[in-house]
């Protein structure tokens, strides 16, 4: 039993030690403590993975009763099934590698212990999230990762941009979390429990149950699933709630890699997969998931092709890939989504950390327009970026190829209108993915150096403490596809009972039997994308600029991220500000202070002044008042008594 608890709580112990005693310990011991704790967590997580997934020993470990209030009973228990074991496996390994990488990357930062404490704390919350046994526990982890994400985006709190980005991430996530919280309330209202076992077991009986709200009547499961999905949209930066993710790149690069690519942002996908027993009975909600996922996939890719900040390109790429995962879930191919989640964790962490290595080499420059011509100086990073990009683009035999293909095939095999839409969007996004990936590689590494000489003279390969984790991630990015293929295999019981797919929804099974062109198209378009990038940026470097000039409105639309930030600023931020300012000046200052504290205080002194005047000092006044008092009381009785 201890074995199953260890991976969850070791990071917490590490975080507590480093966070509380970091200053006393010093930087190096703090790094060692958190890395050792994470390493131990990763090893135990691998054992757990072996026991649970390979041997099929699904566990449910009761820790303690958390909340007990009337009918509302919440336990704290760990649910270690195939789904959570898979997540634990991915999270701890990627987190461990990023911890190690951070030793090198954050070497010159004055707040090393704080950084490591946050990283470990994040890992704990993420693990608490994936091992949750009920919705509230999941919510705990969900809010916890949100909190640490906020702390880490604003890690360099002296930068105004970092603070703004942290607040933005928190607020946008709050919108999603509100939906999630409502979803949990709706679940309790409908099922009378928030424990996974009870809720999932009862789901088939709730198909025709309605929720009454504001006089309207809505299908309970659809409402619940859509609300849960709103939460997932926020956390996973899906279309409309995506605006925080690119800004989150203000945080240190290891944070972008761990939280904003490999793990936290995938929590939404995990949530949908975890709740598959609910979503399966809510076809409308599944349609919404498919639509939003597919739209995000293509939408984010169109933005990524014009961004100049190396991290933002990868951030939009993450957004787009999350879209793939969601529409996979939307067509009931949850395991395909989870498969892509896992492979993506490896190659996206690799890309981010590789970008970090580039940034490190370029003396903290992030703008690709000021890079170029450095591939000879940092060949290892260059190679690793290639591997990451090949995996991302879905080039055969790299991990992304397997997972992306199965997703697209599942979408096609769903044989619904939305399924075809998702397939089309996915193919289009695949071309763009290849295009922006190689645009990134070429702009960053090839062509003439565009940085100044001082920077160029300083370009150097990162130390081994950074490159070794990169190499390990690269290995993962190559082989994870083969090794984990059983996840989506035909008639495979990799996931046991942790994922439910109704027979008539089995798109995944259909995916193995689609026409050949459906299977080949993703690869073909990826190659087309790569060639196009090569032609545009290598052979004819002046062409992109010309194109941008020709198609200026389109170019600006993409460069400015479809103007979402401006739109939200106009729609929400400004009105909220005006409203707040108005309420502050007129409402609080004028009405509440005026009538409330200030008014009452003024009234009190005025009353006091008058009351004091009653005390005239004349004896006969006093005597008169006494007699008058008696008279009044007696009159009272004579009339009412």
């Amino acid at each position, binding site marked *: 039993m201890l074995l199953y608890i260890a991976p969850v709580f070791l990071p917490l112990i590490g975080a507590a030690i480093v966070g509380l005693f970091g200053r006393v310990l010093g930087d190096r011991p703090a790094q060692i403590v958190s890395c050792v704790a994470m390493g131990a967590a990763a090893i135990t997580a691998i054992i757990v993975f072996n026991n649970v997934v390979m041997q099929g020993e699904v566990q449910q470990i009761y820790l303690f009763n958390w909340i007990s209030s009337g009918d509302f009973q919440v336990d704290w228990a760990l649910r270690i099934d195939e789904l959570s074991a898979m997540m634990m496996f991915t999270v701890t390994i990627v987190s461990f590698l990023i911890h190690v990488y951070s030793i090198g990357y954050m070497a010159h930062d004055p707040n090393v212990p704080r950084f490591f404490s946050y990283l470990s704390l994040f890992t704990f919350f993420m693990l608490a999230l994936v091992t949750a046994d009920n919705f509230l526990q999941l919510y705990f982890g969900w809010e916890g990762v949100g909190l640490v994400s906020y702390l880490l985006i604003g890690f360099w709190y002296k930068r105004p941009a970092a603070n703004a980005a942290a607040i933005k991430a928190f607020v946008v996530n709050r919108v999603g979390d509100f939906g999630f919280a409502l979803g949990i309330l709706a679940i309790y209202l409908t099922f009378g429990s928030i424990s996974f076992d009870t809720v999932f077991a009862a789901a088939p009986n709730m198909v025709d149950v309605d929720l009454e709200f504001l006089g309207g009547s809505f299908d309970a499961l659809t409402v619940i699933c859509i609300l849960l999905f709103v939460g997932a949209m926020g956390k996973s930066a899906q279309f409309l709630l995506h605006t925080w993710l690119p800004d989150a790149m203000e945080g240190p690069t290891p944070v972008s890699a761990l939280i904003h690519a490999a793990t936290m942002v995938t929590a939404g996908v995990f949530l949908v997969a975890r709740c598959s027993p609910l979503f399966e009975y809510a076809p409308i909600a599944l349609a919404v998931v498919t639509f939003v996922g597919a739209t995000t996939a293509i939408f984010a890719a169109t933005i990524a092709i014009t961004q100049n900040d190396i991290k933002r390109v990868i951030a939009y790429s993450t957004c787009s890939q999350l879209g793939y995962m969601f529409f996979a879930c939307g067509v009931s191919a949850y395991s395909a989504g989870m498969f892509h989640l896992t492979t993506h964790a490896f190659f996206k962490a690799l890309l981010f950390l590789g970008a970090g290595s580039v940034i490190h080499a370029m003396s903290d420059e992030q703008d690709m327009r000021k890079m170029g011509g450095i591939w000879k100086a940092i060949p290892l990073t260059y190679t690793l970026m290639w591997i990451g990009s090949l995996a991302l683009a879905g080039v055969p035999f790299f991990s992304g190829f397997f997972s992306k293909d199965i997703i697209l095939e599942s979408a096609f095999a769903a044989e619904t209108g939305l399924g075809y839409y998702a397939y089309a969007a996915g193919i289009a996004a695949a071309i763009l993915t290849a295009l922006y990936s190689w645009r990134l590689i070429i702009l960053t590494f090839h062509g003439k150096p565009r940085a100044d000489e001082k920077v160029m003279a300083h370009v150097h390969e990162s130390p081994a403490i950074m490159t070794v984790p990169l190499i390990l991630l690269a290995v993962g990015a190559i082989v994870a596809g083969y090794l984990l293929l059983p996840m989506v295999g035909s008639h495979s019981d990799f996931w046991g009972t942790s994922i439910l797919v109704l027979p008539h929804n089995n798109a995944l099974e259909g995916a193995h039997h689609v026409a050949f062109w459906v299977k080949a198209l993703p690869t073909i378009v990826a190659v087309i994308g790569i060639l196009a990038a090569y032609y545009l940026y290598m052979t004819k470097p002046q062409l992109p600029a010309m194109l941008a000039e020709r198609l200026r409105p389109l170019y600006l639309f993409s460069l400015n991220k479809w103007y979402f930030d401006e739109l939200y600023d106009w729609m929400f931020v400004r009105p909220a500000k005006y409203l707040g300012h108005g309420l502050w000046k007129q409402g609080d200052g004028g009405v509440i202070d005026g009538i409330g504290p200030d008014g009452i205080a003024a009234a009190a002194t005025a009353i006091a002044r008058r009351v004091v005047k009653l*005390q005239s000092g004349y*004896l006969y*006044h006093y005597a008169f008042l006494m007699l008058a008092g008696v008279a009044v*009381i*007696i009159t009272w*009785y004579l009339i009412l008594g």
Partner: protein
Amino acid sequence: MIEFSAPDYLTALPEMFLATVSLVLLMVGVFVGNRSTKLLTWLSVVAMGAAFIMVLVGSHAPSTTFFGMFVSDSFSIFMKCLVLIGAAVTLIMGMGYVKRESMNRFEFPVLILIATLGMLLMISANDLIALYVGLELQSLSLYIVAAFRRESIRSSEAGLKYFVLGALSSGMLLYGCSMIYGFTGFTGFHEIAAVIGHGGGDAHGVAPIGILIGLVFIAAALAFKVSAVPFHMWTPDVYEGAPTPVTAFFAAAPKIAAMALFLRVLLGPFHELVEQWQQIIIFISIASMVLGAFAAIGQRNIKRLIAYSSIGHIGYAMVGLSAGTPDGVRGVLVYLAIYMVMSLGTFACILAMRRRGQMVERIEDLAGLSKTNPMIALALAVFMFSMAGIPPMAGFFGKLYVFLAAIEEGLYALAVIGVLTSAVGAFYYIRIVKVMYFDKPTEGFDKPMGAEISSVLAVTGFVTLFFFVYPTPVIEGAQAAAALLFP
């Protein structure tokens, strides 16, 4: 055939003892003269201490004597203990003042002793006549001590005002008593209660209006003694004008005795009329709380401020009485005990306000006290926070119990008004703390303040601050006393 048997004197042992001692001490004073003041003071304190022990070891079982006019029970024991402590402590801490401020006359401790005796008789009164005798014995002594500094115009004015208004209230009391006697035919509390309990002759069980009018007059007179609005007018003038030790005594002992009498009368003979007198008490309570809160804001003299504060406190205590339940009465008793401690402590601070040999009484004289006399400032801050009802000071619990009792009886409006006025009241209490801690220091007070005052300050401050740690003796005593009034 008329049987005659001697009354059981043992039941009234503390009173008999104090009466004897006061006469003996008076003789000593007459023969030795003013030199003996200090000795007489200490002897009076010792006599009170002895009476205290007699009260405590005496039988707790209810017993009556003097043909049912005098009763001793757990209620009277609790109240007598409070009164004796209050009286003894004020005597002790007033000693320095008495010596310095040309009050060094032997009558002072003896008068205080006699007033205390009157209070004990009031507390044990079980008959309208006994009630009146005890009340007058107390009041006459108090009129004199209020005017004890004959050369001071303010002191004489205070005494005279108190006397005239007191006489008026005595008149009301007697008038009320005569109404009650006329309509019930009895003066003993038990007999009156029995008559009223049987419907007072009315077929519908409604008491005759004459009894109600009598009740109103008696209540008015008692309200005068506890200085509840609208019978409070004497309080600020007398508090300000009387010598400070006398004011301290006024705030501590007579109020408690009068409140005891109030409880005894309303819950004894008039227990059945609870629905009627409840309305009076609620009115008095609200009026007192509101006036106490607002009028104190305008005060510059600290004794006057405390006078208004005491009016407010009586209002809060009345909240418990309004409930008319054992819990409510327990709340009143706890409130009185805590109030007595706080007010003794506050007056110890005021007695220490002496600059270059002169007493000062203005609030701005406290400016910067935290720098010049940090210990007094700390103690006064504790008392002020406690009076404002801020947890965990004792005053908070006093308010808590009475408000809880009121809420349990469904008197929500009363409780809400109480809470609101205590918020207003917090303003002037905390303003004193602000003056002491944040205003620019002026000249410090004379040092040393004297062992008596500093020890009183230490004990009362300690009790106020740490009451919450071990409140059991007070709560249980009050519980037992309250239970007795609800047979």
